[in-house]
C-alpha cells in the first residue's frame, strides 16, 4: 500500500486555524475600544439586560413535551408501514389499525385523567397523572 497523502489535510487544518485566529487577532488590533457600564455583560448591544436568564418553566410543559415525544415516536412505526403499504396488503392494514387503536385508547385515557387540561381551574376527574405532574 502506498504511503497516504496527508499534506492536503494538514494544510486544510492549518488554514482553518489560521482563519479563526486571524479574525480574532485583526479585530483585536484594529478594533475600537471603549469601556461603558455594561461592556462586560453578555449580549451588550446598547441595552442593559434585566433579570435572570434562568426562567423556571412551569412543569406543565414537561408533560406536554413527554406526550409529544412518545406519540411522535410512535408515528415512526406508522411511517415504516407506509413505505410498504401495498406489499403489506389488508393484513398489514388491520395490524396498523390495531396499533393506532391502542394509541387512541392511550390518548383517551390521558384525556380522561386530565393530563391534557391546561387551565388552572379545570381539575380533571382522575387523580393519578395530574397530581403527580402538576403540583407547583
Amino acid at each position, binding site marked *: 500500500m502506498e504511503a497516504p497523502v496527508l499534506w492536503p489535510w494538514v494544510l486544510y487544518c492549518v488554514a482553518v486555524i489560521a482563519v479563526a485566529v486571524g479574525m480574532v487577532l485583526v479585530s483585536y488590533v484594529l478594533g475600537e475600544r471603549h469601556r461603558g457600564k455594561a461592556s462586560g455583560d453578555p449580549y451588550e448591544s446598547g441595552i442593559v439586560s434585566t433579570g435572570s436568564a434562568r426562567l423556571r418553566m412551569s412543569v406543565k410543559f414537561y408533560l406536554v413535551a413527554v406526550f409529544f415525544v412518545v406519540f411522535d415516536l410512535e408515528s415512526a412505526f406508522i411511517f415504516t408501514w407506509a413505505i*410498504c403499504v401495498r*406489499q*403489506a*396488503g389488508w393484513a*398489514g392494514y388491520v395490524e396498523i389499525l390495531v396499533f393506532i387503536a391502542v394509541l387512541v*385508547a392511550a390518548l383517551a*385515557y390521558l384525556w380522561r385523567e386530565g393530563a391534557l387540561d391546561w387551565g388552572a381551574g379545570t381539575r380533571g376527574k382522575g387523580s393519578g397523572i395530574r397530581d403527580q405532574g402538576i403540583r407547583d
Partner: protein
Amino acid sequence: MNFSDLLHSAMHDLLAPGASLSAFRPELTLCATILVILLAKMALPRWTTSAFWLTLLGIAAALWFAYPWSWASDAIPPAHSIFTGVLVSDSFSVFLRLLLLLFAILFTTFTQVSGVASQDDMTEFYVLMLGALVGMCLMISANHILMVAMGVELASVPCYVLAGTQRQQPRSSEASLKYAVFGAGAAGIMLYGLSLLVGVLGTAHLPTMSTRLAMLIQSGGGLDRGLVLVLGGLMLMVGVGFKLSAFPFHFWAPDVFEGATAEVAAFLSIASKAAALGLLVRLALGFSFHPDPAMLAVLAPVRHYIVVLVGMLAVVTCTFGNLAAYGQNNMKRLLAYSTIAHAGYMMMPVAAAVALVGVDMGEARAAVASLCVYLAIYLFMNLAAFAIVAFLRNELGSEDLREYAGMVRRSPGLTVCMAVVMFSLLGLPPLSGFVAKWFIFLSLISAKLWIVLAIGALNTLLSLFYYLRVVKVMTLSAEPLHRPAPTIPLVSMAGSYCMVLTVPVVLLFFFAGGLLNWARAAASTLLY
C-alpha cells in the same frame, strides 16, 4: 430474497393457522387486559376495584392459553420459532411463562390482601405490573437480539415506576430514582455490547449467531474480532447481571428493596429474577450450542468463556450476598441480600449446563431442569417471606427485625410460617428449599465444577446464622416494652394467605418427584 417475498413470508408466518399468533396468545391476552383496564376506568369510574378483578381475570385467561393442554406427557412437541424467528416457543418458555403467570395471580391477590394497591392509583399499579409481565414473557422466549433488547426494557421500565408507587415518601422516590438511573445505564451498556456482537457476527438471530461464531473460530478469526466479541459479551453481561442483581451490579437491590414497598420488592425479586435467569439460559446456551457436532466441538472456547464468567459471577454473588446479610436489621434489606445470594445459587446450574453442553446433552438438560425446580420453589419461599414482612408492616408500621421480638406468643401461626420459610431458604431437609439446593449441587457434580460446588456448600453454612437470627428474634427474644408484639391470627385474610404460600413450601419437599418431572419436561426441548 427481496423485500416483497420477505414481507409475504412474514405475513404467512403470522396468519397461517397454528402459527405464530396462536403461540403468542398469553402475551396478547395480557396486552388486551391492559387496554381493558384503562378503558374500564374511563367507562365505569364508579367500579373502584375494577382494575383488580380485571387483572385477575386477564391473568387467569392468559394462564389458560399458556397451559399446554394438547401435550401428552411423553410427547412434547419440539421447539419451533415464531414470528419469523424472533421468538422461540418450546417447553422451557412454556414452563417459565406458566411460572410467571402463576406468580402474577398470587401477587395480585397479595397486593389486594395487604392493601398496597387499594388507593386511587390501583389502575396504574396493575397496568405497570402487566406491562412488565409482557416484557418478562418476551425475555424468556427471546431468540433474536431485538427481542432481548425489547424484553429487557419492557420488563425494566415499569419496574422503575413500580418502585416509586408511594410517591409522597422520600425513600420510595429515592429508590425508584436509583433504580431508574442505574437500570437505564446498564441497559444502555448492554445495548452497545449487543450492537458489537451483532455487528461482528453479521446476524441478530441467536442460532445463526452461534453458526457464525463457529465459522469465525474455524477460520482463525483474528484477534481483533475475538477481542470485540469478548468485550461485547462482557457488556451484555452487565445488563443481564443488573437484572439478576449479580455481584458487581447488585448494589441497587438493597436500596431499592428498602425504599419500595415489600410487595414491589417481592415482584422484583421473583418475577424479574426468573425472567432474567430465563434470558441468561437462552443466551448462554444459544451462544455455546450448535446442532452440528463438528461445529459444536469448535465452540469449546466460547463455552469455556461462558462457564468461567457465569461461574465466577455466581460464586462471588452468592458469597457476597450471604456475608452482607449479616448485621442487617431492616427485614427488606436482609431479604434483599438473601435474594442476591439466591441469584448466585441459581446462576450455578447455568454454568453447569454450559459446561456439560459439549459432554453430555442429557446432563446439560438436567442442569437446566434443576434451575427450573429451584425457581418454582423459590417463588413460594420468597413470596411468603415478603408477604409476612408486608403484613407485619401493616400492623407495626415498621420493618425492623428487632420489632418482631417475642412474636411467637401473640401470633404463633405466623411465626411458624416465617420459621418454615427461613429454614427453607436456608435449605434444611424436611423443606423444599433443601430439594432445590440438592438438585443444583447434583448438576454441579455432574459438570465437575468442584470449586463452585465447594463454595456453594460453604455458603449454605454461612447463611445459617442470619436466617436463624430472624427465627431467634421472633421466638426467644422478649417482647419490646413500649408495645405488644403484633397479632395476626391464621384465620384472617393475611394469615390464611401466608398459610397458602407456606404449605407448598413444605409439600414440595414430599412431592419433589412431580415437580422434577415437570422441570425435566421443561428442559427436554432445549439443545436440539
